[in-house]
């Protein structure tokens, strides 16, 4: 039993990332009807916002420290981050330590802005063009964003550690009444899961309980009628694009301690997120979230040694296999609505 719980836990963090990206993809698809191949690039940008924040916080100036001497007896020159000067030693260190969660503050406006800019500057012009063109131009954009990141940050993965308080493991088994040390789970992954649950809940609440969300949902159901009622639906959809970008960006920010970001990380997640969206059902938000967690957990079950002993390598292909089976048996996906992308 505890082995099963471990695998479910292991699947949660990947599943959360899939769910967040797929949620954004579905939002964009449901509102604007655009298949956004650059969504992985938004995840990537989010991850590198975290990297940048960490670097910004570490910007230092040199201080001559009279109390320390080097071996010749001269005073040492010590690099001191500016945050030390501003907030004092202890607070400054804490701020640097918590760089990744803090970068959320920076990531939200940055991602919203990038989302708006993308929609207004590029994608707006592609509504009337075929779906293939939309795929192609966003695919090109994804390449460009990835390469720009590579030009600035190099091709190697960049270590972005979690706050030291969250680097340890949580003894999850004790909470459930198992022996101590039977189920150990990295604290940050638990944080990631709760974080994504909160983001997902926030997006749903926003759509469900605000007037703005109501209008957006109405627009998703029938864009033309909403427009005829005198509501500027385009503007609201642009804002939804920004929100979808922010969701992907936040997923990227918080994922950095789990997987050191490199310029290709977006593409890796994108392909899987597409599969997630299709399995969940194009245009269905709960479907995307459900499929994200389901596929993440199934993937971690498939990578159990007991399973691999029966079917070797199943962990590599299980997601695609499931996608194929789902699409062939339930062509609309698990929770797809009628009339969305049916041709």
């Amino acid at each position, binding site marked *: 039993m505890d082995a099963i719980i471990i695998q479910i836990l292991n699947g949660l963090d990947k599943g959360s990332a899939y769910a967040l990206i797929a949620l954004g993809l579905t939002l964009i698809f449901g509102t604007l009807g655009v*298949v956004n191949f650059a969504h992985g690039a938004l995840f990537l940008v989010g991850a590198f916002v975290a990297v940048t924040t960490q670097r910004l916080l570490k910007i230092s100036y040199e201080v001559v420290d009279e109390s320390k001497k080097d071996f010749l007896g001269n005073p040492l020159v010590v690099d001191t981050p500016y945050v030390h000067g501003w907030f004092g030693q202890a607070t400054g260190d804490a701020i640097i330590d918590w760089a990744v969660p803090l970068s959320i503050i920076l990531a939200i406006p940055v991602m919203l802005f990038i989302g708006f800019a993308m929609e207004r500057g590029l994608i707006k012009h592609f509504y009337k063009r075929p*779906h293939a063109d939309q795929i192609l131009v966003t*695919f090109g954009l994804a390449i460009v964003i990835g390469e720009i990141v590579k030009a600035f940050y190099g091709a190697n993965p960049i270590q972005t550690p979690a706050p030291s308080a969250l680097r340890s493991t949580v003894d999850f088994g004790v909470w459930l009444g198992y022996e101590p040390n039977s189920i150990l789970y990295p604290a940050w992954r638990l944080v990631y899961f709760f974080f994504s649950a909160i983001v997902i809940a926030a997006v749903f609440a926003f759509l469900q309980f605000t007037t703005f969300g109501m209008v957006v949902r109405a627009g998703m159901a029938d864009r033309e009628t909403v427009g005829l009622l005198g509501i500027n639906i385009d503007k609201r959809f642009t804002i939804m694009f920004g929100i979808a970008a922010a969701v992907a960006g936040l997923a990227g920010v918080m994922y950095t301690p789990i997987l050191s970001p490199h310029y290709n990380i977006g593409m890796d997640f994108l392909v899987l997120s*597409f599969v997630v969206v299709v399995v969940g059902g194009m245009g269905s938000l709960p479907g995307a979230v459900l499929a994200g967690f389901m596929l993440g957990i199934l993937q971690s079950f498939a990578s159990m040694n007991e399973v691999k002993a029966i079917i070797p*390598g199943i962990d590599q*292909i299980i997601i695609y296999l499931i996608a*194929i089976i789902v699409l062939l048996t339930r062509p609309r996906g698990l929770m797809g609505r009628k009339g969305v992308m049916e041709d």
Partner: protein
Amino acid sequence: MLGLNGKDFRLFLIVCVMALAAPILLNPFPVDGALAQFNAGYPALMQAFAIFGILAIGFNILFGLTGYLSFGHAAFLGAGSYAAVWMYKLFNYNVIFAIPASIIVAGLLSVLIGYVSLRRSGIYFSILTLAFAQMMYAIAYSDLLGRFFGTPITNGETGLQVYNSDPQFLLAEGGLAEPHLFTLNLNNLTKIQFGGWEFTFEVGYYLCAIFLILSFYLSIRIFRSPFGMMLRAVKSNQNRMNYTGLDSKPYMLAAFVISGLYAGLAGGLMAAMDPLTGGERMFWTASGEIVLMSILGGAGTLIGPVLGAGAIKYMEKIVSALNDNILHGWFAWMPDGMENVAVAILHPFVGKGWHLTLGSVFMLVVIFLPGGIVEGGQRIGRLFGRKGATQTPTDATTTPAE
């Protein structure tokens, strides 16, 4: 002639001449000249032109005619390569076994994938093909088949190649240990000096060129056939086609398999030029590259994909060979400050950053020139041509894209 009308025959002739005279045409600059870096007439690059040309022609039969965007074409390429290398391992290095085998294997795989994927259309089709290709990649890269059969089939990350311990039943004692066509070594080459110029003629390239010409001929015939009309009907309105009582499924499957066969041939030729292969040939970025080629050249036109393949491979070679020193040389005529600014702006685009150039060019093409190079050529032609002169897609062959 050859069952082609006058215009198509002229186009076909131009392609023949270009393919056969490529070693001369692509080497317009003297070897010692300053512009020698822009020469493209050496075997490895010309082979890439021809092989990717074949690949793009095949992809275009699917995407250009029917509008079904496959994001998993590299799976057939990789399958073809694996089949070819297995033929080397089992029989001998004669490509007369390898290339048919690669075509057959890719064809069988495309029947399987096509039958399943074509049950959906639009974005679902793209994602299904993508999923299949990624699955094939995972299977090849972790050698799943090999783990079932207990012997390496795709040889995982190492990649498949021929070892001395392989059976090679038909390899005679002291036989040729390089890919050959009935003992004609494909790596044989003749260099001809002509003044300051040097032209390299390689057997392997000519094998590719002949296949390119055959592929191109077949593609013209398909474009002009009733079958091609059916595929175009699928693109313009599949529903209406179905309502008229025509079942589009068999046509679609046939188109998919044909383009799979082309990809298999290309994979076989790759293995014929270099007798090893690896899983990364099937990775989805490879599929993406095929898409880029077709779009850049002009999907749905006859010559477009070949031009696109050539343009991308040429750009890759030229742009990734550039570096800051060469750029400084180019902008030496500017004042110092401006020169540095110009170099700094271009720096991320050259050398290792060539994918940035590719992505940017591709985006610009999709945004402003959806018809690709061919449409660009038409527009230029219209600009300079006589007023009222009718331009057809085929006229764009005169653009010097390669």
